[in-house]
């Protein structure tokens, strides 16, 4: 992603008396009170000003009434990782004390002056806002009053940070899809609050914004939306799902995009989306559709993946194309439904009893969510196997900047599907004709009688007929192994984010890339960074490891899952690999990465 490439001037150099376009903002509110609109309005405003920006919603697993925090990272350097905030908006009495205490000294606290609280720290710059006062005259019903209340901090921040009001208005209009009746009352409050701030607040903190051009031409979107959009352009024709946070947004986006982009002139739908009764059924339907020739997808998260185990094994063994998006949340078990993780890597790679091994993709940006959204179908049909796309809550549910997505350069690759003519007079479903381990398949409805076969999860010979013969079993499984070798060369290869370093290299995947990238900017010593985009691995990864004395695998889970898989696949290089694995549900910060990597660098100094 353009904006996240290493920067010439290091961020730290910018901490001067006035800090422009370089701070992190945390808005503490209660969920279900409409604060999301206020937060997104601010986010969009910075974005429209051309300033690199990113927002993270740290929300509770309930519907209304609990604390929620929204982090906005404003960074002229294009950094989008989570960062300890310099500016706090404290609008939630329940967490007020905790929030205020959490701030570093010299930071800023904008708070709701109506709350029966005081900021008991003189090392903070505090601004109290008379919320009730500012909304009392606004022309909305009582029901909406609480909602617009959040616009008070928007207005005040606009003034304090110097966000032009017209940009705020633009952003509000964006949030409300141009519906004036909704925009007006909110704008009213923003203006009032802005005016009040202008009159009563004297700016005592260094943080402000200035227009830039960095984000011009970019889009701001969630990973779930990007993945769904990619699927639409990948020709998805069937989706089955069961609701589960944080994957629900993926299907919501599908259901929003499809009617808009994929209905025919005759008004008929070139797709169908089914809400299944559970995840077993969701994957069962997806496999049924894939077997019949549709481009079929399902989306879920940890608990759903567990329930899909048996069907995953069937998909692998009966060789049925399907795409499964796992928007990872914190597990084991029901875990933390609204926190992010990279914890399903090992489980999904081996998902299904017996010798099952799955193809996996690891998007790290909205561009890759879009790209893998359509490529996953090509891969699934080329390889005739379920393809798992492992995103996560942070990437999937939060808004990220990205360059406009590239339209698929290649036509769809539908794989080895034989027409009635191509079948001729004999057909063996599981025969390795081409030596790549990938057999040919036919679809139900094929009018050639020879094309018929009985797909099954039981042992079979090349004609798909049930067989208990030892040699049939091992031959078929060896072919599947060959197919997996073929997969190594067809999946997206790793990206060399930074050329091999002096001595130390880093391997990571997915949404942790931003914290790592920011961290590596801070080291004098050049550190290599390879970003894995798929499993199984291929030789590029081996080469990267061989190019370093030591390679640290960084991941967001407790058990060093990718590290373990690499040990298994590259035993000869095992000694060079180290692991930084950690999970507490919060996205990594650059400073966390720096802390954990520093020891590996110091080693050298010794």
């Amino acid at each position, binding site marked *: 992603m353009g904006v996240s490439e290493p920067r010439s001037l290091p961020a730290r150099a910018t901490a001067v008396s006035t800090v422009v376009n370089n701070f992190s903002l945390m808005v503490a509110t209660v969920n279900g009170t409409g604060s999301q609109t206020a937060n997104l309005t601010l986010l969009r405003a910075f974005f429209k000003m051309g300033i690199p920006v990113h927002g993270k919603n740290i929300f509770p697993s309930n519907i209304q009434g609990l604390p929620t925090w929204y982090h906005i990272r404003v960074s002229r350097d294009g950094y989008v990782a989570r960062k300890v905030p310099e500016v706090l908006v404290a609008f939630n009495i329940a967490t007020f004390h905790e929030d205020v205490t959490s701030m570093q000294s010299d930071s800023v606290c904008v708070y709701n002056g109506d709350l029966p609280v005081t900021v008991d720290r003189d090392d903070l710059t505090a601004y109290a806002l008379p919320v009730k006062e500012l909304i009392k005259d606004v022309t909305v019903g009582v029901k909406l009053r609480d909602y617009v209340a959040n616009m008070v901090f928007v207005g005040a921040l606009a003034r304090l940070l110097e966000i032009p009001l017209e940009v705020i208005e633009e952003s509000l209009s964006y949030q409300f899809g141009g519906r004036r009746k909704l925009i007006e009352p909110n704008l009213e409050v923003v203006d009032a609050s802005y005016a009040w701030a202008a009159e009563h607040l004297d700016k005592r903190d260094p943080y402000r914004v200035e227009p830039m051009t960095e984000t011009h031409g970019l889009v701001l979107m969630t990973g779930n939306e990007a993945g769904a959009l990619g699927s639409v352009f990948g*020709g998805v024709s069937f989706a089955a799902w069961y609701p589960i946070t944080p994957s629900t947004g993926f299907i919501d986006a599908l259901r929003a995009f499809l009617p808009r982009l994929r209905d025919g002139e005759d008004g008929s739908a070139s797709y169908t989306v089914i809400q299944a009764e559970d995840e077993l059924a969701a994957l069962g339907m997806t496999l049924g559709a894939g077997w019949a020739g549709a481009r079929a997808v399902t989306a879920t998260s940890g608990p759903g993946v567990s329930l899909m185990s048996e069907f995953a094994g069937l998909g692998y063994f009966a060789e049925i194309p399907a795409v499964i998006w796992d928007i990872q949340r914190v597990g084991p078990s029901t875990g933390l439904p609204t926190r992010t993780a990279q914890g399903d890597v090992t489980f999904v790679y081996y998902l299904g009893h017996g010798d099952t091994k799955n193809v996996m993709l690891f998007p790290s940006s909205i561009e890759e969510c879009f790209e893998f959204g359509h490529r996953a179908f090509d891969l699934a049909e080329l390889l005739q196997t379920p393809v798992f796309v492992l995103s996560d809550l942070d990437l999937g549910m939060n808004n990220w900047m990205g360059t406009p997505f590239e339209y698929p350069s290649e036509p769809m690759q539908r794989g080895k599907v034989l027409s009635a003519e191509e079948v001729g007079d004999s057909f063996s479903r599981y025969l390795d004709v081409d030596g790549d381990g990938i057999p040919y398949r036919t679809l139900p409805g094929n009018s050639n009688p020879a094309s018929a*076969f009985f797909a099954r999860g039981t042992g079979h010979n090349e004609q798909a007929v049930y067989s208990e013969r030892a040699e049939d079993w091992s031959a078929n499984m060896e072919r599947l192994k060959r197919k997996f070798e073929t997969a190594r060369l067809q999946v997206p290869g790793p990206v060399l984010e930074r050329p091999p370093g002096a001595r130390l290299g880093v391997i990571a995947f997915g949404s942790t890339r931003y914290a790592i990238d920011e961290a590596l900017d801070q080291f004098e010593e050049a550190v290599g960074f390879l970003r894995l985009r798929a499993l199984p691995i291929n030789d590029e990864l081996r080469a990267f490891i061989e190019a370093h004395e030591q390679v640290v695998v960084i991941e967001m889970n407790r058990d060093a899952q990718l590290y373990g898989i690499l040990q298994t696949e590259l035993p000869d290089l095992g000694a060079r690999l180290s692991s930084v694995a950690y999970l507490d549900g919060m996205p990594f910060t650059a400073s966390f990465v720096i802390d954990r990597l520093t020891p590996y660098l110091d080693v050298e100094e010794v």
Partner: protein
Amino acid sequence: MDRARPLKSNAIGMVKAEYGGLASTLCKGCGHNSIANQIIQVAFDLSLKPHEIIKLSGIGCSSKSPAYFLGLSHGFNALHGRMPSVGTGALMANHSLRAIGVSGDGDTGSIGMGQFKHLMRRNVRMVYIIEDNGVYGLTKGQFSVTADEGQDLKYAGHNDLPTIDLCMEAIIAGCGFVARSFAGDAKQVRTLLKAALSHRGTAVLDIISPCVAFNNHDSSSKSYGFGRANVQALQEIGYLAHEEEITLDDHEPGEMRVVELHDGSHIKLHKLEEDFDSSDRIVAMERLERAREREEFITGLIYYDSSRPSLAEVANLPDTPLAALPEERLRPSPEALEGLLQGYR
């Protein structure tokens, strides 16, 4: 087993043998074998095109049987209890296909209860045959949910739990074609199969199909002996393909009903029970409940309601199956992408 029709060919010039499959590996005398034979006969009689049919099953002796019929049709032997979901996906991906699904009482009523109920509710177009023997045949005879309450079996022991009536389960979940039959009554099985294939939604055939290995003692309601002695048909049923003209024979008007099916074919229902009416949901449920209380083995068309649209019909699908749509229809234009992204600037 049917009188062979050597080389006689049907309307599309196929001989019966072409509707056959591999040799059965089930026990000699297993009810499932006779049902497989009726499926072959019906496919031949109706001149079905094999490639327009898919076979579906779960896991069990019953679920193996699709390997033994319609060898020229594609099929999917899915997972234990999961035929409904796989079938739903396949039939939405290609709504031009007709499906014959074979399951067992364990596959449907035990592990598969959830998916079965939800399939009924969605009204996916498929013929769902339950080869019902009251036990898990393939795992050597444990009780299933349709086993007789209080029954004792040498291996399985004593069954304390009540019998689940899968026809009742189907009706209250929204199924519009629910019938019960007996593997020992080949003629009725064939007629119901033909009618079921003409139904646009899910059609459930709960066919008592004795397991000669584990549950065929005359005392078992799932045995040949019990069946032959107690079977009690609710109607005499006749199937009339489109071409055949409808003759009302010499029955009292009240006794005889002719019902048009979705594909224009008809069934003739000659009532054998005065006040039974298969078009009335409450009557059907009440009759099943009475049969349960009185341990009656009723067979025939228990409930029929053609009004509910199938899942494919409510999905507003194009005539071309989703699986066959060309790339132009599946991938929007570059302009469409550009246009949509504008909204995220």
